[in-house]
């Protein structure tokens, strides 16, 4: 409605301007020297005269030259023509300041502003048409043109600033209101009123560009979507036997993995997550009997060439988002012992001994629940339980529990470090609960160098198994590209059964694009089976990973 009124108002103004302009045009008059002026009786008492002589550069009078006088106040135009001697005269010009000009052959030969015509005055203006007057007139024209261009530019700027959406925006707000005993609603507290929450539509007037509006709509739509993530990798490894007679002597292996992640926000602070994984190929672990997995992806290989539901859970956060509950089909190792430098087979070390603490002991994902408390002051506590049997008969069958306490701080003026201690129980063996415990730390020594270490111990029927690992990680320095990382690590496993393993790995992870990584790995493993012959292998390998 307001806009309609504006348009009508604008049109009316425009019409008025046209009428005024026409009036100015109608005010044009032509006077000849010696002739009585065409007088407007109403203004007769206020007019003044202007006269003079038009000469050329040599001083000769110029006949039949038209002299024009334009009022600077209202644009009224008057003209007079010179006689044979070059004289011209405006007998009665309304009081104003005038711009006087002479045009010859289509070009302005003379122009002068601010010629003052006073009430009953007689002004004299002699005009010389020479090169100087022409140059001055040309400069005048140029200035005039520049002024018009500036005006035009300003109008374009105004137009640009107005070509945006200025329709009112509607949004719904959650507001606190105060309801008095009589049921009246107030925005501010009143005596006896009860505070209540309600929702209220609000309208604001904000100009938005079209692109801003589109961005807002896309963002809004994105919030309602199910997000799909993909993590696809192919790890090729070559095995070269360096010690012992174990078969095979040499071989090439490749394992391709594809993870599909689905995430959706389904309520306030509540998230649904599902991970479907498919693997295909032959890892070295299918043939080489090392204690730990040489290819960390092998842990996900349940069945060749088929998709498996790896995880599907709901997570909700309460208590100012400090406390999180997760329940569903879980991989508890994702939530425990999350070492910053050695916990991801897709971007860091590929050997499982440098991805997971081998004493955590989980083999199969299952139904479970976990809770995380993050005080946001560096302290974190977690507890979770999960079934780790492919075919459980009851909830208590093959049940793992895991507990962890962690702390983040900056010790000894070093950058940040994360320190954790965990404890687990496992009732997989009938009539006995096996226990395990471990430590995990990752500490930055400088912005470029990080140190990590793990220790784990678990009970078995034969005694205690032990596991150690440690190493360095490098980023932001000693690299080819800004976001490359590399690391070296060592892991050792000593089982109560007498089996032992020592493993060393180095990797360089090259970030080709935000979504594509290429890693080079070299692992060396020495295994000493209890009562068996030692054997050792060298595993050079390449890993391609695409994640988006």
């Amino acid at each position: 409605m307001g806009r309609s009124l504006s348009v009508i108002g604008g049109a009316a103004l425009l019409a008025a301007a046209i009428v005024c302009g026409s009036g100015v045009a109608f005010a044009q008059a032509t006077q000849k020297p010696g002739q009585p002026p065409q007088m407007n009786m109403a203004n007769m008492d206020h007019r003044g005269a202007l006269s003079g002589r038009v000469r050329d550069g040599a001083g000769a009078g110029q006949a039949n030259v038209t002299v024009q006088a334009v009022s600077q106040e209202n644009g009224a135009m008057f003209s007079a023509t010179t006689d044979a001697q070059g004289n011209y005269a405006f007998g009665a010009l309304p009081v104003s300041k005038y711009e006087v000009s002479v045009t010859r052959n289509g070009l302005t030969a003379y122009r002068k502003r601010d010629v003052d015509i006073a009430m009953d005055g007689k002004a004299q203006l002699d005009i010389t048409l020479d090169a100087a007057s022409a140059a001055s007139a040309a400069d005048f024209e140029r200035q005039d043109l520049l002024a018009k261009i500036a005006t035009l530019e300003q109008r374009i700027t105004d137009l640009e600033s107005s070509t945006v959406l200025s329709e009112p925006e509607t949004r719904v707000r959650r507001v606190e209101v105060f309801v008095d005993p009589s049921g009246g609603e107030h925005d501010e507290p009143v005596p006896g009123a009860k505070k209540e929450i309600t929702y209220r539509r609000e309208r604001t007037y904000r100009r938005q560009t079209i692109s801003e509006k589109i961005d807002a709509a896309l963002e809004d739509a994105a919030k309602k979507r199910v997000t799909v993530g993909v993590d696809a990798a192919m790890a090729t490894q070559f095995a070269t036997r360096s010690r012992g007679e174990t078969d095979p002597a040499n071989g090439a292996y490749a394992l391709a993995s594809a993870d599909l992640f689905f995430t959706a926000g389904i309520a306030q602070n509540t998230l649904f997550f599902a991970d479907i994984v498919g693997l295909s190929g032959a890892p070295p672990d299918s043939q080489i009997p090392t204690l730990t997995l040489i290819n960390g992806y092998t842990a996900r290989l349940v069945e060749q060439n088929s998709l498996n539901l790896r995880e599907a859970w709901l997570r909700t956060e309460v208590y100012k988002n400090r406390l999180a509950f997760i329940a569903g089909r879980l991989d508890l190792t994702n939530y425990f012992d999350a070492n910053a430098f050695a916990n991801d087979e897709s971007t860091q070390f590929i050997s499982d001994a440098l991805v997971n603490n081998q004493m955590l002991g989980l083999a199969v994902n299952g139904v479970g629940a976990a809770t995380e408390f993050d005080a946001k002051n560096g302290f974190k506590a977690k507890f979770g339980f999960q079934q780790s049997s492919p075919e459980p008969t009851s909830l208590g069958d093959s049940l793992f529990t895991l507990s962890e306490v962690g702390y983040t701080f900056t010790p000894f003026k070093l950058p940040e470090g994360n320190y954790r201690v965990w404890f687990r129980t496992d009732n997989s063996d009938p009539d006995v609960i096996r226990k395990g415990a471990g430590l995990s730390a990752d500490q930055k020594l400088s912005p470029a160098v990080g140190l990590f270490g793990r220790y784990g111990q678990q009970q078995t029927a034969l005694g205690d198994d032990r596991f150690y690992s440690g190493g360095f990680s490098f980023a932001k320095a000693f690299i080819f590209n800004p976001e490359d990382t590399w690391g070296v690590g060592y892991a050792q496993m000593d089982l109560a059964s007498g089996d032992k393993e020592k493993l060393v790995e180095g990797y360089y992870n090259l970030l080709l694009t935000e979504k594509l990584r290429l890693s080079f790995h070299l692992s060396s493993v020495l295994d000493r089976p209890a009562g068996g012959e030692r054997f050792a292998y060298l595993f050079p390998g390449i890993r391609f990973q695409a994640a988006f």
Partner: protein
Amino acid sequence: MFTSRRLIVAGAVLLVALGALGVGLQAQGVKISDPTSVVMIVNRDSNDIAFMDIKTKKLVGSVFLGNNVNPHMVMMSPDGRYVVTGGTRANKAFIIDTKTLQLVKTIPVDIAPEHLAFSPDSRWYYQGNPEGDSISVIDMQSLSKIKTIPGFAEPLNVTFLPDGSKAYIGNYGAHWVGVVDVRRHELVKKIPIAEVPGVSKLDPEKYLGEIHGINIAMPSPDGKYLYAADGTLGIVGVIDPREDKVIKHIRVGKDPWRIYMGHDGKYAITPNNGDETISIIDLKTNTVAATLEAGPNMTGVNFAAGKAFVISSTSGFVYVYNMSSLKPAGRIKMGTNIQLETATTDTKDEKMYLAESTNHEVLIIDGKTEQVEHVKNVGLFPWGTHIMDSKDNYCH
């Protein structure tokens, strides 16, 4: 008798004089006598600048700028005489008299004016026009635009050297900082912050997509160096203003929004929206002292009571960090389904004034106790706040 009559006359004259003086003062309409006593609030959708008394927490006035102006950032001149703002959708700069809260001048500038700065002597007001790729130079003596400096790429923030000789312009649409000679008001040098890595050609989506360049070249508290964070490159470049060249690169987290200087001169912080961390930079060694977990969509960092307060705009949280131990110190829940904007800190480093646009309020956070007080109905869509002489005056 004569004496008492003279006394009566004298008293009457005095009363009249006092009355006249009072009327005079009233006529002048002094609304703010101490420019340091107020918090200025930019209300984007009600198109006004509101002034809140720091002591009483009441609005003492507001200046309406015009329909659909959408002011972006407000700043008081260092001499406290004027308050200025750029109207993003009006393409104009607005100058307000601090004492009377009168809009004294509206000056057309270039397209979409947002952030601005004053020269230390209050003479020049540089208005950045990100969509016009220019800086408008406004003379605060004549209150007129004297020049438009072209040649920038989405100029987002302006900072002056303490001696006022040069101004540094952060270009969010490029990877360089512009150096302006303030005597001539001319762009005299472009300082590239870092080389784009060789693998960039493999990643056109990142490098040829929306560029996240340099938000601001921020002077260190001692004024010796300038620090400029580049979002796409994930680097902070340290500029020596004596030679106007980068003397050190500091690699921080992903997509740093900009750098914020701690008040004690020891540390600075970059909120890294790409990986939802903050990088704490040791200004003595120019290295990252710690990288700590933070929240999504961070829009600002304030310092008070020995702590850093990092605003995570969409999560409704302010993350707190102890600047002595450099470790997380909890987070403050400001609300649910709200949008936090930016904040300013008082000159005592005690309280912060955070604009919250969803409920049209300003949240006052006590730095020591972390208690939050709500000041409601400050105007529609409060977008930012400003206190004269605050060390944390910034905008989005």
